[in-house]
């Protein structure tokens, strides 16, 4: 512990009492006994288990299916906070799209020397096979999940961009479903923006980038690696709520550069694929000859302009951790302005100066593998053991280019129901941003992940993290006018 963190409900550590706009939430917490909160939380988790909303933890065979713990106390964004955040997100995602168009096209950003060439061309995430292909409507990053952390009322930082196959949106929707059912009184106190139109927004995005001309109804599908995948529930949930087929690679066949799915009545042409499989397993003819997985010929069909793939193959170059540290430059280059959402300060260990600093401050920094995810291959200096630190020191010296390091931030906290009652826990946030042919939209909500262990900064579900609902309040502030007993001075 020891980190003085900003609490999103209770305000700064130095403050006295809840943030004025969120007092109602505080009262709710005070008025609802912990037992009652716990009962509701258990009811929600029972529902999740019954629905099979599970995820698999890699490397654990016995507990192959778990549910992610759900916390009943929501985190809340005020309308004006959200408006500023949205602007930053739109700017960032527009820049990511422009970057991908450029990198797989003209490469102006390299020619003008903004980024070192080897950073891109020598990066495993750069797919030379994709260069020259123009996806329908020039949209690459259709569905982005931008991971944010917060350290103060108006201090948000981007921790990570996810422009490949970001997951978690089903939790946003199921958590809201559970909150509406179990805590209806909160929705009487707060005007919360609805998130349940997400499947419609996603389907609209898919249709908008269909390669077919307007007027014809495109056939859209969700492509999943299969029901053993850890995010399978989400894949099926999304296909289901959009009313489209959930296909596996073996269900698809490419003939003469056209993609079909195999049905009981024969082949049906497919126009738009929301894929939830990695590039490596999309097309064995292009990406991995050793893989039996994938749809042979899919990339050829894509290059021929006969099918749209969301997100576009090759996107990994935009959310790679090594690229991340250049995002401020990238945003400036394409938008012409400063990034509204700053990065977390990042030391690129490939640079000798930075490496030297990192090695000297290992006990204060968070060190991450450039190509790692899910909280694996990560060192949290302040809480790490001596042995762990030494292990990372050796790894850093051996292959510095594989690592970046960041200062340990005092991540904001939100009151969370734990065994001893309600207590602050650190959170992060993943909002979802959709880009179709008609522009960029931010979904008013997202996935809040919470580190359930006291003092822990690691929120990943595979590392004991949980989730919370994320309220985005609509204009008019925190409360509806009918809230009894609220201060008149607040102007409602």
């Amino acid at each position, binding site marked *: 512990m020891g980190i003085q963190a900003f609490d999103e409900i209770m305000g700064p550590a130095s403050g006295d009492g809840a943030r004025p706009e969120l007092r109602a939430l505080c009262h709710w917490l005070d008025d609802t006994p912990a037992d009652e909160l716990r009962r509701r939380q258990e009811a929600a988790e029972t529902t999740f288990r019954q629905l*099979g909303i599970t995820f698999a933890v890699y490397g654990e065979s016995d507990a192959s299916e778990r549910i992610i713990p759900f916390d009943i106390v929501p985190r809340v964004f005020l309308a004006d906070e959200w408006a500023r955040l949205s602007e930053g997100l739109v700017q960032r995602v527009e820049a990511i799209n422009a970057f991908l168009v450029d990198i797989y096209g003209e490469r102006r950003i390299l020619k003008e020397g903004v980024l070192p060439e080897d950073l891109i061309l020598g990066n495993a995430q750069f797919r030379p096979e994709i260069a020259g292909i123009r996806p329908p409507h020039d949209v690459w990053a259709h569905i982005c999940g931008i991971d944010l952390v917060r350290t103060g009322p108006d201090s948000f930082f981007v921790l990570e961009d996810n422009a490949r196959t970001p997951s978690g949106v089903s939790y946003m929707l199921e958590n809201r479903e559970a909150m509406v059912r179990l805590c209806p009184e909160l929705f009487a106190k707060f005007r919360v923006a609805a998130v349940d139109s997400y499947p419609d927004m996603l389907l609209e995005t898919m249709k908008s980038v269909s390669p077919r001309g307007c007027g014809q109804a495109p056939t859209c599908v969700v492509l999943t690696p299969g029901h053993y995948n850890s995010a399978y529930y989400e894949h099926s949930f999304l296909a289901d709520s959009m009313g489209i087929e*959930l296909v596996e690679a073996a269900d698809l066949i490419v003939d003469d550069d056209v993609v079909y799915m195999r049905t009981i009545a024969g082949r049906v042409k497919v126009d738009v694929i929301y894929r939830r499989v990695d590039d490596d397993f999309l097309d064995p003819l292009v990406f991995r000859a050793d893989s039996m997985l994938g749809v042979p010929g899919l990339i050829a069909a894509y290059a021929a302009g006969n099918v749209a793939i969301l997100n576009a193959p090759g996107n990994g170059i935009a959310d790679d951790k090594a690229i991340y540290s250049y995002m401020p430059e990238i945003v400036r280059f394409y938008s012409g302005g400063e990034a509204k959402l700053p990065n977390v300060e990042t030391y690129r260990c490939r640079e000798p100066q930075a490496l030297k600093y990192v090695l000297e401050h290992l006990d204060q920094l968070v060190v991450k593998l450039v190509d790692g995810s899910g909280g694996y291959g990560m060192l949290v200096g302040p809480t790490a053991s001596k042995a762990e630190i030494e292990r990372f020191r050796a790894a850093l010296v051996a292959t510095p280019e594989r690592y970046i390091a960041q200062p340990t931030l005092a991540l904001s906290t939100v009151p969370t129901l734990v065994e001893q009652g309600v207590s602050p826990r650190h959170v992060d946030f993943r909002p979802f941003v959709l880009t179709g042919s008609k522009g960029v939209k931010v979904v008013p909500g997202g996935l809040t992940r919470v580190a359930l262990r006291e003092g822990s900064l690691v929120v990943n579900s595979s590392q004991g993290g949980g989730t919370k609902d994320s309220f985005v309040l609509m204009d008019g502030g925190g409360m509806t006018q009918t809230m009894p007993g609220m201060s008149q001075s607040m102007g409602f």
Partner: protein
Amino acid sequence: MLSRAAASLYWLGRYVERADFIARLVEATLRLDVLSPRPAGEAAWRSALAVTDTLDAFEATGAALTREEVARFLIGDPSHPGSILRCLAQARDNARAVRTALSREAWAAINGAWLVFDRRMSRLDPDATLAVVDAVKNETRGFEGAVHRMLRNQTTQFIRLGQSVERTDDTARLLDVKYHILLPEGEIVGGIVDRDQWTTILQTVSAVTAYRWLYSEGLRPANVIDLLLTRAELPRSVAASAEETVTALNALAKSSGTQGEADRMARNRYARVVKTRTGDVIAAGLHQHLQTVIEENAQLHLAIGRQFKFG
């Protein structure tokens, strides 16, 4: 509909039906064992294994042929592919693969049936065995109900097709068991143990009361055979199952425009079943007849796979 999804739905139907059948079989055998005036003991459990064609597999485990061991084997043995546990795991696996096609209710029932085993496999005295069996039957009934309330589209048609094909097989095997079971020494045909065995068969298909309604005489083997083979009023009879297979295939032909070999086989079979006279069957050999039913059903199963490109 995707061919893979169709295959999963069909297998989902088969596995749920099989789990339900084995649960009923264990329940009936347990009753026979515990409740009859003279405990039927080993012979009862041997017959339960014979019905499911798993005598050899059971012997290979090296376990003694006792109530507890056979019940454990049939209900919860994770290494026995025909145990209820494995059938439900397979059903759930198939259900997961077509998660989107099922209603939440139907999925919750399958998931619930599977979760039964998370909680209760530690000890299997008769009470606990009955409790597990009841829980399984409850969940499969819940699934049946949920399927009834789903859209009457290809999804439910494939599930029903799988169920009806499985049911034909189960009922034929159940009847055939009498062929395998020798009466214990000193027992006579028509004696107490013989009667108990026929009653067990009726109980397994929930037909004790139905039998009384349909046949005014007391318990007669020929009538039990007649009921289970030819009476379409009894949902689990071979006749009713064969009819339901035809119905499901007809509905699929209508909705998918796919019709072929499987439809012809199913229709021909049903036509023959309707004409079957129990007296002739018994005279010519019941076992022979049932073996033909099982073999034809297996052929039909393969034809269905070909017709809908299960691949």
